[in-house]
């Protein structure tokens, strides 16, 4: 009896130190943030001196037009870049999934942007978007076309940060979809060729559906990341002109450093965190559901036979 008990508990005993360390390391900052979001706290105070204001910071955010604006900018940004990057990345994967000489080099070049530090990417694009000496406007000029207000007009600025993000993160989708594509079961593909599916129809009816689980997880990962993007936009537009590119992360950092409202910034962070957690949960739920479904089906098939 006793040994059985010990045996059952032993694994947890061994896990306990790691779990405790992880829990403290993870939960302490989050707890700190939640506590801070209930305070009216400016950076010159110690946290103990700040006034407790309950949910006032959250109430304020709900009515704050600028926050709402930046919330929508963020969602619009995340959805647009993920959709475009998925299309481009998956498309590229199909294009480059062939055994040709030089493919490895080409693929390596394609994933370079992902490896550059975001600050550098931001600087690079800011120079390229420069109204007079940037490569885009110089090219337009030499073609006899009017210059474009890349970063100085609200709509153009939003488009510009979308383009920069696509440039940097399409490679991420590309390598994951290429890996998914190359690990598809070859016999199903051969059966489809015998059945008469070639080219587009093979992609549409067989390859894409089979890649779907990987693609969905990839899109969710990218979405979570897109909600947190900061440096590139900070360097390129710093949220402007107006609030046109002020994504949440930027608004949070400005609320803390410029407006010196640590409590409000913390409340915003928590709302963002909540959103991301919902997305992550959706991702886990998706994998769980597909796994559970597969397990149920297997069980049913085995019972049958």
């Amino acid at each position, binding site marked *: 009896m006793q040994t059985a008990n010990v045996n059952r508990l032993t694994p947890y005993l061994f896990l306990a130190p790691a779990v405790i360390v992880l829990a403290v390391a993870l939960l302490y900052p989050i707890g700190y943030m939640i506590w801070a979001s209930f305070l009216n706290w400016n950076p010159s105070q110690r946290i103990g001196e700040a006034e407790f204001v309950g949910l006032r910071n959250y109430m304020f955010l709900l009515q704050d037009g600028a926050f709402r604006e930046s919330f929508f900018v963020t969602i619009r940004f995340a959805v647009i870049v993920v959709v475009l990057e998925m299309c481009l990345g998956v498309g590229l994967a199909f294009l480059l999934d062939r055994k040709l000489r030089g493919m490895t080099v080409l693929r390596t070049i394609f994933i370079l942007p992902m490896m550059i530090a975001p600050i550098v990417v931001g600087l690079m694009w800011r120079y390229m978007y420069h109204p007079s000496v940037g490569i885009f406007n110089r090219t337009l000029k030499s073609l006899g076309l009017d210059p474009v207000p890349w970063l100085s007009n609200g709509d153009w600025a939003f488009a510009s940060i979308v383009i920069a993000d696509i440039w940097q993160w399409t490679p991420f989708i590309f390598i994951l979809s290429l890996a998914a594509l190359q690990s598809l079961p070859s016999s199903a593909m051969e059966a489809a060729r015998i059945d*008469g599916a070639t080219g587009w129809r093979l992609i549409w009816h067989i390859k894409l559906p089979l890649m779907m689980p990987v693609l969905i997880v990839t899109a969710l990962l990218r979405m979570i990341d897109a909600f947190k993007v900061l440096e590139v936009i900070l360097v390129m537009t710093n949220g402007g002109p107006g609030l046109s590119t002020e994504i949440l992360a930027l608004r949070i950092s400005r609320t803390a450093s410029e407006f010196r409202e640590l409590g409000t910034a913390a409340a915003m962070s928590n709302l963002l965190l909540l959103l991301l957690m919902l997305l992550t949960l959706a991702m886990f739920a998706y994998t769980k559901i597909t796994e559970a479904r597969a397990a149920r089906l297997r069980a049913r*098939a085995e019972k049958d*036979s």
Partner: protein
Amino acid sequence: MPEIVFDKVRKSFGAVEVLPPLDLELNDSEFTVLVGPSGCGKSTTLRILAGLETLSGGEIYFDGRPIGGLEPKERDIAMVFQDYALYPHMNIARNMSFALRLAGVSKSEIEEKVTRVAKLLNIDHLLDRKPAELSGGQRQRVAMGRAMVRDAGTFLFDEPLSNLDAKLRAKMRTELAEMRDTIDKNMVYVTHDQVEAMTLGDRIVVMSDGKIQQQGSPEELFKRPVNRFVAGFIGSPTMNFLDGELHTKDGSTWVQGDGYMLPVTGETGQRVSQVATSRNITLGLRPSSIDPDVTAGAPIELHIAVAEYLGAQSVLVTRCGQTEVLAEIASAHRFESGKVRTFGVATDELMIFDRDSGLRL
């Protein structure tokens, strides 16, 4: 239902030559079985025929029309894969109808065909399930069904039964044999199971190392194998091979080796009596040619090691001199292990192979 001709078909993977120039003719409406040991190029031959592999040389003709450069879908073939290769994201009905849908066949016709074939194969209650919801045997049927709704001119099978358990395999083998007689199509069937080959094939093509050793009806291969390889491959339990010398004297012919001396009679005896005397040969002795009744033929002394009980028949594992010899005996007879006993050999069923070339004399 085309007549298919392989004309000096070659296939290499990089530096490895899998098929040396291969000539093969498949007749109209015939069930041809490609059989041979693992790695001999059976699947490669089938896949080249299907258009899944490119030719390295030579040409394939369907009714005289070269098809080597055509895509699989232009060859009017259907194929059943060893691992079934069902589409995991489609339900069974959609799996079966995929080719028809691509070909733009009308909805009502698709439904009619799928239902008919599904009934035939006893899978009509599974149509809205996904492949993952089926057992191995059911998946196998779906794979068959997917090929059958196609109404193609040629059907290709690559070891379709090898993933099934023994009982199910025997059942499907029988069903396939029935189907073979009702469907009037070219069928090419790859297997390394010689029982499958014997029961299904109108014609069997025995391959080894990419080369065709012999082709013919099951009976031809069993009774008149051209060489030692074919003789050893066809028949179960496998033929016994004993080294020996062939002697002819005064019109009688006999073989003599370590622990045995047997006269060679019948057709074989007449034929080999022409060959020079004292020649080194390999004697081929079918397990079924050995009888516990000594008077049934010429006597041979065998040292009994084990009896493997198979039901009505038992396989006796024995030794003749240093060579292992299998004998197929009715189980009614009981034998004690470790004893030496005299058996009778049907001497007109003996086969004589040249020791060096392996050719049957």
